[in-house]
């Protein structure tokens, strides 16, 4: 009897607790009426979580950009170079000196004084100092003539010699080599934000570590490592005052969680994986694509070292141009784009050559012949691919490895690799899928030891940047395809600063790569921001800047 009563009491207790828990939780968590003081953006954690602009590579700059400005800005609609902290600029005919006229009356946050030519010199010092690992650091060191054994004092002296302060608002940057594309290197596309020299003199690195201080439309408030970075708007900012008072970047590792935070109304913009974007739309969210192409994606043949014969394995099938063409023609690019990328891809004809993006720096770089002949030479044609393989002596195919790994910004890489394997199997080849860590792959291509493997990469547009890294025979880091012809053209490029001549040389290299099937170019992709349309009426961003979610100060809120 006692046992029965006790049993009943426990059951009633459990039921009562459950019935109370729901309404109680509801009453205590009911969200307040939306009033957007703080715009929240959920993004995957960056490789770095620091206030130092030079101790990370370019993608790590995303969470600091709201506070920073550059000499030259990027138009959020067209991706064009526009005046930002520099009002005007001019290059000498030899390409070895650039004069910048700076905007007057621009103040650093927290009363660190007016932006002047001294700050430009200081920015170059920061990126070239010995501990800098910034993406463009090596390039700037070359331009400034800095050696690897130089101490921080020597670096400071060399930068002082190379950067002339004409007056507070005029600065001349002299470079050891011709730098006709310096406009890009000082723009928001790259890694040279303007930071305060006065602040460095007052507290050096220690002070810089505490906050990000610049001249941007947002002022740094707080960084909670591993959680978020918070900014507040600068009232009456010279360029644009944001509509909302605060901006928060929130780190959320998992893609599904980023989607959930957006749908639940906890954030207003989110970096939602392409595979989950349909779910976001179903839940009433909107996908806003970037205005410009954001990422190029290509696959590469391992061991194409024609300019360094000691590293070449001449008997490997990949060295035969017909095999390379066959492998290109076996790829059903449209099917991959439609099924894996949701149809949101633009064809790429030559690795990282883009007709519009490159034309801003090198008018005339694009060869219309490439458009005309791409279907004939690269179009999906398994029959022709088989014939080419037979012609090359590989009627029964051959074995090779496809390296699979994950890369930030392109989670579809594994699926694409598997799709490529199926396409190649269909023409008689015997690809073997090999999963491994990306640093292992990097080690192989860096040391010219990636013979006989196929691997994929992705990156931002800029033909010359890719050529410098992928196609030089020495002093490079990604040895993908080198050739005496390209070496010859590089030598000519080093001698001229004329944009038209440089465009012509780049076009010749493009011709070589296109007709030699040097790589397997796949797509250009746009960056997508998933936004809550009830909160955001308009968000326009170029996408061409690494990190993608830029120009947040221009977000228009829904009424």
């Amino acid at each position: 009897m006692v046992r029965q009563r006790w049993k009943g009491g426990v059951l009633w207790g459990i039921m009562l607790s459950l019935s109370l828990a729901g309404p109680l939780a509801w009453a205590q968590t009911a969200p307040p009426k939306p009033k957007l003081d703080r715009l929240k953006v959920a993004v995957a954690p960056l490789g770095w979580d620091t206030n130092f602009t030079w101790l990370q590579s370019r993608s790590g700059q995303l969470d600091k950009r709201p506070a920073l400005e550059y000499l030259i800005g990027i138009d959020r609609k067209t991706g064009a170079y526009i005046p930002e902290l520099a009002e005007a600029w001019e290059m000498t005919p030899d390409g070895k000196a650039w004069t910048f006229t700076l905007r007057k009356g621009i103040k650093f946050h927290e009363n660190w004084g007016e932006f002047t030519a001294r700050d430009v010199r200081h920015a170059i010092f920061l990126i070239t100092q010995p501990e800098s690992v910034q993406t463009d650091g090596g390039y700037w060191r070359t331009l400034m003539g800095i050696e690897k054994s130089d101490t921080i004092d020597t670096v400071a002296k060399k930068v002082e010699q190379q950067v002339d302060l004409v007056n507070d608002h005029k600065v001349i940057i002299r470079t050891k080599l011709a730098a006709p594309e310096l406009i890009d290197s000082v723009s928001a596309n790259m890694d040279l934000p303007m930071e305060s020299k006065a602040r460095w003199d007052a507290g050096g690195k220690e002070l810089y570590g505490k906050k990000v201080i610049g001249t941007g439309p947002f002022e740094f408030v707080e960084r909670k490592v591993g959680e978020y970075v918070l900014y507040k708007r600068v009232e009456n900012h010279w360029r644009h005052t944001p509509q909302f008072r605060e901006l928060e970047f929130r780190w959320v590792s998992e893609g599904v969680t980023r989607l959930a935070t957006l749908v639940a109304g906890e954030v207003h913009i989110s970096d939602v994986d392409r595979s989950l974007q349909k779910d976001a739309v179903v839940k009433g969210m909107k996908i806003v694509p970037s205005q410009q192409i954001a990422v190029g994606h290509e696959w590469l043949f391992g061991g194409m070292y024609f300019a360094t014969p000691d590293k070449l394995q001449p008997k490997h099938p990949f060295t035969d141009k017909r095999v390379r063409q066959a492998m290109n023609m076996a790829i059903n690019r449209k099917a991959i784009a439609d099924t894996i990328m949701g149809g949101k891809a633009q064809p790429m004809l030559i690795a990282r050559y883009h007709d519009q993006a490159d034309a801003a720096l090198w008018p005339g770089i694009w060869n219309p012949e490439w458009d005309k002949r791409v279907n004939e030479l690269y179009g999906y044609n398994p029959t022709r691919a088989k014939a080419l393989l037979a012609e090359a002596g590989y009627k029964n195919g051959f074995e090779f490895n496809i390296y699979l790994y994950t890369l930030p910004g392109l989670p579809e890489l594994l699926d694409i690799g598997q799709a490529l394997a199926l396409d190649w199997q269909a023409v008689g080849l015997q690809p073997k899928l090999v999963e491994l860590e990306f640093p292992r792959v990097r080690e192989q291509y860096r040391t010219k030891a990636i013979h006989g493997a196929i691997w994929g990469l992705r990156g931002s547009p800029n033909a010359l940047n890719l050529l410098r890294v992928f196609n030089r025979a020495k002093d490079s880091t990604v040895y993908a395809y080198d050739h005496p012809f390209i070496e010859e053209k590089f030598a000519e490029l080093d001698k001229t600063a004329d944009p038209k001549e440089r465009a012509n040389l780049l076009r010749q290299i493009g011709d070589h790569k296109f007709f030699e099937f040097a790589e397997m170019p796949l797509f250009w992709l746009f960056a997508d921001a998933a936004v809550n349309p009830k909160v955001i009426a308009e968000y326009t961003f170029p996408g061409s800047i690494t990190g993608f979610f830029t120009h947040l100060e221009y977000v228009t809120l829904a009424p």
Partner: protein
Amino acid sequence: MQRYILVRFLQSLLALWVMSVIVFSLARMTGDPLDVLLPMEAGEGERERVAKHWGLDKPLFLNLENPFDAQYFTFLGKALRGDFGMSWKWQGHTAMGLVIERLPATLELAGVAILISALLALPFGVLTAVWKDTFFDSFGKIIALLGQSLPSFWLGIVLMWIFAVSLGWLPTSGRGTWYHMVLPAVCLGWFQVAAMMRLIRSSMLDVLDSEFVKLTRVKGLAEWKVVWKHCLRNAAIAPLTYFAITAGVLITGSVVIESVFAWPGTGLLAVDAVRARDFQVVQAIVIVFAAVFIMTNLLVDILYAYIDPRIRYQ
């Protein structure tokens, strides 16, 4: 007894040292950290410069010219003083500083998960044993089966979608109020609830059949007193030991849950550090985790020795 404790303590130190060798070696076997630390465009000069700056240019274990001038000995020497170096990913922060900063979040989550598992497993375990082969027992078995078989990653997402997105009762992720803690703590605790519940149930079933229990009933003791006082006390040894180890598991095993719920604890720190090949932070976390685990085991062993006098080192 003192000898027993001393031997176990020395064994724990040895285990910690072995762990330091393993974590140091494994971290470096996964590839050159410079391939993550430096941008793709960085040339050989950049590599040399940065390698020198971080001491990565020295031999790993054996330096014939100067035996102690190797990366491992530098690491060990500093680690003994609690210095695991500066983080590469979180520039400006020390590795141990980051672990200490994130540890409260993990302890908070683990504490609530332990509380949930104890509060649920104990009554459910006892009651399923008392009401053996009833509907309640079957229900308990289902709860245990689900808890032990559902992947925590999947469970986390499903709970998030139901309670945060669809119902809007709880936040999806992050840390702040206690509402933020509910979903990750339930996910983390459920597996342990299931395991502990089964353990309590089987221990209770053994005890419920014993002679002294029959005697207490014959003597006319109230049933609740028989069950909750006499039976539970005798059945508690095995679950208690397991519970102590569970505490270690919960503190160190929250990696998946913290990632799913963006909970800023040491688990998420570990994932981010591994992704960034931030050896310093990885080493600091693993050594701290190992120390927690070893200390928990040491305490359990000592507790065991007190409870069961037969356990002694001769």
